[in-house]
């Protein structure tokens, strides 16, 4: 008899929660059909599913015929349907494909239920080597799948590991269903480690950067809170949420008949708020009258529809779009796409949509010894903000950035507001406006065609044959091999001087998913694995240009890719440094006029001596590893070999020794 069953007996005696059933009440064996009818009384209609895609409870249960709990009672065993099976019933109504987990004792009840009761399908468990990686996988997955993944973590220490990834997702407006185990009742809690890992309010640690959390006191409460959590998470602004699952709630067996009224509420996702109609009309009037209207966009396109609407609006006005790249908001090779601050300097109207940092968009802050700062927009430039940032804010972490005064602030979801803004602009377009707009469009087309290609080609050629290999060469070699495929890039490209965005053609929503949001390193590799998982059913060729420093935070994500057969081409940008920090140290030493000639800025910034062999690292975890590639002429054959492996359904990694940026 385990100490666990002892505690169950003790609990049963005091009848603490009524529904506990242990050895003492073993005679009251509950058979599976009774357990099912506790959820769904015979003849009762199935709970309405939230969409045609989601299985109803009835369907879900029909799929999991393994749920037999009708075995006769033996000492030390449980009889009846445990609480965590009910929890799985709830999860099955939510169209959750995957829950990523690092196994944990506080979650053992639901873990076992997902596998043996739920059949490890909808949701299926993914194994992660670290909760931060698992949560980042869920983050990357969402941005392609557009539905949330669960991240199941141990109470306290597991959540502590996950915390940075939750912050990234918060800043990046990505919903994740965080779930942890915990036990409040010291009388039933196992002493020692499980007690060390228990907390009165475990959610407190991440509450500043989650939208909602709850620690349900009963299974019915869990049912409502899980559905509510899903709904809150999936209402723009999308954000992570957390449900704390009591261990006794998971592991206990409700008494027969206790759940006659157990129900799973349906999810009706709220429609996101649209901009108020007068403010939208006023904005439209400003835009139509402007000489140089500029849209600055960061996370406008929550869905592919947002991308199409953004193109429609920009073309309607022939207005420049500066895409800050939090999502795939605008095609990078469109003649109205602009990079950098020049367009903003010229603007007479700036409409910022779902921006992380409006202040930083219209002001300059140069990182000099005397921190010069000031506006870059012309005096009198009118400004409008549209975004959910005004709808929802928290005080502690400063991701809301500096305060930027604007002329019109529309507190609404930008994507949901675009149709009415387009309509309002269309209503105002008279002959004179159309002529002005046509001329502006022609000028933009002319400027685009002449300038761009020459600059890019000259810059690319300038270190074409260099070793370490340049970001330009790497990007052109890759592009040659993927441009005729259905491809997607699942990493950022700042670290290689944005070369993919300078030369590849991004025009589909799924080809770009932005970055970590909170700039927390250790996101890149696992988020790429999560995104690749979401691309897998579509058979896309998924590319991750992987920074070496980021990889070393949690290389175990490679193992997850191998184990779950997630095809992903990892191309190392191996500059053997935390290069951003090299530059910071150079800057500090220069300001202080010391240390440069000793190379002091290499201390605690570089990742060399010894060099990391990423191909071997990958191989050790079952991922095909190629490299290190130092000669640029070896790059194409190495990439070709790796792409063959990825197309056959496996991950691969090519280690490329690169220029700093």
């Amino acid at each position, binding site marked *: 008899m385990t100490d666990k069953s002892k505690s169950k007996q003790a609990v049963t005696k005091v009848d603490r929660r009524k529904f506990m059933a242990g050895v003492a009440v073993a005679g009251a064996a509950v058979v599976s059909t009774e357990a099912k009818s506790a959820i769904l009384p015979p003849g009762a209609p199935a709970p309405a599913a939230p969409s045609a895609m989601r299985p109803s409870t009835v369907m879900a249960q029909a799929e999991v015929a393994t749920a037999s709990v009708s075995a006769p009672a033996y000492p030390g065993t449980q009889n009846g349907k445990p609480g965590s099976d009910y929890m799985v019933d709830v999860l099955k109504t939510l169209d959750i494909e995957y829950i990523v987990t690092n196994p944990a004792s506080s979650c053992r009840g639901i873990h076992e239920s997902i596998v043996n009761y739920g059949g490890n399908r909808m949701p299926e468990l993914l194994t992660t080597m670290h909760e931060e990686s698992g949560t980042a996988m869920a983050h990357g997955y969402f941005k392609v799948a557009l539905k949330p993944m669960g991240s199941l973590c141990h109470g306290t220490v597991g959540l502590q590991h996950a915390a940075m990834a939750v912050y990234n997702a918060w800043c990046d407006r990505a919903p994740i269903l965080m779930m942890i185990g915990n036990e409040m009742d010291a009388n039933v809690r196992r002493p020692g480690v499980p007690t060390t890992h228990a907390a009165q309010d475990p959610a407190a640690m991440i509450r500043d950067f989650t939208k909602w959390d709850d620690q349900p006191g009963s299974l019915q409460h869990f049912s409502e809170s899980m559905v509510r959590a899903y709904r809150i998470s999936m209402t723009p602004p999308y954000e992570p949420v957390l449900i704390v699952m009591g261990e006794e709630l998971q592991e206990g067996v409700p008494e027969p008949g206790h759940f006659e009224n157990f129900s799973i509420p349906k999810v009706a996702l709220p429609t996101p708020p649209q901009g108020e109609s007068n403010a939208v009309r006023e904005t439209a009037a400003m835009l139509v009258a402007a000489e140089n209207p500029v849209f600055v966009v960061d996370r406008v396109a929550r869905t592919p529809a947002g991308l199409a609407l953004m193109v429609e609006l920009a073309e309607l006005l022939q207005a420049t779009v500066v895409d800050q790249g939090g999502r795939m908001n605008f095609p990078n*090779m469109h003649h109205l796409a602009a990079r950098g601050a020049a367009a903003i300097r010229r603007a007479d109207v700036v409409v910022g949509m779902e921006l992380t940092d409006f202040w930083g968009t219209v002001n300059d802050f*140069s*990182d*000099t*010894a*005397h921190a*010069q700062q000031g506006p870059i927009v012309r005096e009198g430039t009118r400004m409008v903000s549209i975004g959910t940032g005004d709808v929802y804010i928290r005080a502690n972490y400063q991701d809301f950035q500096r305060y930027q005064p604007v002329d019109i602030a529309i507190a609404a979801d930008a994507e949901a507001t675009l149709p009415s803004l387009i309509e309002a602009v269309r209503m105002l377009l008279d002959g004179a406006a159309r002529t002005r707009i046509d001329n502006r469009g022609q000028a933009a087309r002319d400027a685009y*065609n002449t300038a*761009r*290609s020459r600059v*890019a*080609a*000259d*810059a*690319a*050629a*300038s*270190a*074409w*044959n*260099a*070793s*370490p290999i*340049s*970001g330009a060469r790497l990007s*052109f*070699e890759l*592009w*040659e091999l993927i*441009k005729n495929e259905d491809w997607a890039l699942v990493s950022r490209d*700042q670290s290689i*001087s*944005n070369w993919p965005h300078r*030369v590849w053609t991004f025009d589909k929503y799924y080809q770009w998913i932005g970055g970590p949001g909170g700039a927390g390193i250790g996101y890149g590799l696992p988020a790429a694995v999560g995104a690749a998982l979401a691309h897998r059913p579509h058979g896309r060729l998924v590319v991750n240009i992987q920074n070496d420093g980021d990889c070393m935070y949690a290389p175990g994500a490679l193992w997850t890719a191998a184990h779950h057969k997630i095809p992903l081409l990892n191309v190392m940008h191996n500059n053997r440094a935390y*290069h951003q920090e*090299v*530059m910071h140290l*150079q*800057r500090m*030493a*220069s*300001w202080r*006029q*010391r*240390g*440069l*000639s*000793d*190379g002091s*800025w*290499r201390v605690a910034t570089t990742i*060399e*001596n010894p*060099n990391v062999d990423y191909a071997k690292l990958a191989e050790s975890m079952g991922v095909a590893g190629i490299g290190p590639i*130092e*000669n*640029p002429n070896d790059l194409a054959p190495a990439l070709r070999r790796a792409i063959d492996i990825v197309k056959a359904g496996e991950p691969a990694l090519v280690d490329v020794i690169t*220029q*700093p*940026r």
Partner: protein
Amino acid sequence: MHRKTLPGFVSALLASLFFAGAAQAADAAAEDGAAVYSRSGCWGCHAYLGQGGRDGPQIAHTALSYEAFSTFVRNSTGDMPPFTARIVPDADLEKIYAYLQSIPEPPAPETLPLLQDVFSD
């Protein structure tokens, strides 16, 4: 003597020179300049061949005279931190300049097959 402290990096630079075809072309002063360029850290923002990138413009084959180059490096108040003679002595900066001017001209973009797409857009 500085080379001893930075063997990995200097060999990387020499490798760059090899692939850039510079080993044949560069004279001794310019090669020394490569080492000075490396330990002075200019590559951090301007990359190993001075080709530039996201964090600093191209400085190889600069159109600036040495005087203008040196004035900028010593007195920058913008995004580049200033490098005074105290941390990059005149003799070093001269070598850096010579090195940057000695890097072989890159291939013409028109001669690189992979770049032809860019022109046909």
